[in-house]
């Protein structure tokens, strides 16, 4: 992706004078731009899926290919692998925008930065969390996860990965100015991911054992609601710090 193409996409998306663009219009433009950038990058959205498949493949080889054992550990294993795939994709969330100056343009925009960040994170979730959620049941079959758990796996990953995107974006925003933020990002973010992992894997476990996954899913939804309210402001604050100091 060249600088020229990116500038082009910016003009396409946010061509109108920004003073006349409302909040919804600006967010829609941000979403369109993110999607355009993602489309021009080609198959990059496939990388988390390939990562998920590779990590999942390691466990039967490393532990034991026995179906009984695999079925027991499958909910947690798929959730951990999906969480790590999300984490890996987060390092690049703001990095290229920081490098080419788009992030500064976002800050200069008259619309609140938090709203634009929310639009950006939403696209990240759409291109990472949603494919992971839809792809995970397929790997579940390979791990002989009982089919009773498949729908819950999709639902829990859809809800949970949105929270992971929001929390992770705070860490990505905090480390965007650092040359090697990758390892640090996992140190900052993984402790905060644990509650999501507990209830996400718990929901699937409950569904597999014939229980009721509702409470765990409700808690995942509650965490998402909380993150939706708080995280955009933390992301915007962290970005301001990373850019302006």
């Amino acid at each position: 992706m060249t600088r020229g193409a990116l500038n082009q996409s910016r003009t396409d998306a946010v061509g109108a004078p920004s003073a006349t663009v409302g909040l919804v219009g600006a967010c829609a433009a941000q979403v369109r731009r993110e999607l355009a950038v993602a489309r021009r990058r080609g198959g990059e959205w496939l990388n988390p899926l390939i990562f998920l498949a590779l990590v999942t493949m390691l466990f039967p080889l490393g532990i034991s290919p026995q179906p009984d054992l695999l079925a027991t550990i499958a909910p947690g294993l798929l959730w951990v692998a999906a969480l790590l795939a999300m984490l890996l994709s987060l390092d690049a969330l703001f990095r290229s925008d920081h490098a080419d100056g788009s992030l500064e343009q976002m800050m200069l925009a008259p619309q609140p930065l938090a709203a634009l960040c929310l639009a950006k994170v939403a696209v990240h979730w759409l291109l990472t969390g949603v494919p992971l959620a839809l792809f995970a049941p397929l790997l579940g079959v390979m791990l002989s996860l009982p089919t009773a758990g498949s729908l819950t796996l999709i639902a829990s990953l859809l809800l949970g990965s949105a929270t992971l995107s929001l929390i992770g974006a705070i860490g990505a925003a905090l480390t965007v100015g650092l040359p090697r933020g990758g390892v640090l990002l996992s140190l900052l973010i993984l402790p905060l991911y644990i509650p999501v992992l507990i209830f996400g894997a718990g929901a699937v476990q409950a569904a597999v054992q014939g229980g009721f996954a509702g409470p765990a899913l409700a808690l995942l939804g509650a965490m998402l609601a909380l993150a939706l309210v708080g995280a955009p402001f933390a992301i915007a604050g962290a970005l301001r710090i990373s850019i302006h100091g």
Partner: protein
Amino acid sequence: MWTFIHKLGSPKWCYSLCGRLQPGFWIAALLLIAVGSVWSLAYSPPDYQMGNSYRIIYVHVPSAILAQSVFVSMAIASAVFLIWKIKIADMAATVMAPFGAAMTFLGLFSGSLWGVPTWGTWWTWDARLTAMLIQLFLYIGVIALRGAYGRNDQGAKAVAVLTLVGVVNIPIIKYSVVWWNTLHQPATFTLTSRPAMPESMWMPLLIMVLGFYCFFTALTLYRLRNEIIRRESRTRWVQALAE
């Protein structure tokens, strides 16, 4: 009152205030910890179920309480720093973090030693223990982020944001023994009711907790003075101090 708070923002004035407060806190910490240790180890009665092994509580509970209090103090200091841009607040948060991490580790370590005679295991994935382990990693994350940025204003703000985000874990630790049915026993001290143990047991514990708080305050004042000197080393009053 307001002039006092405003003066607190001045590194020079804060430096001398820390120097004046420090001896009192050191003496109080020393006395309280000495009295508490002797009382708890020699004079308080053994537990009817756990025998003498329960005495680990006199290190375990104070360090676990401090582990949480220090993080809350750091979060308050971070909020003050972000809102009013008072540099002293950031310096205080900087010097508190390693102590908090040490206390968290001590709480986990003493708890795991205590777990062997009472629970029959070093470690269990209980809600309280796991939340405490997360707390340790949050401390390490705060220290690592500060290390990655070095001593500059940008890093200070980034760490402040991370500390404020990380403070969500504190209520999880606090209420983990209430929300989940865990192996870990409920809180020893509450504000609303008397402790479930006899006075000869909880009095030395209370003294130890207060002693740990005084030690924390004294150490923070001491390290804050060092931090002020280090960060303000270019100013005239520090250079005059060195001569």
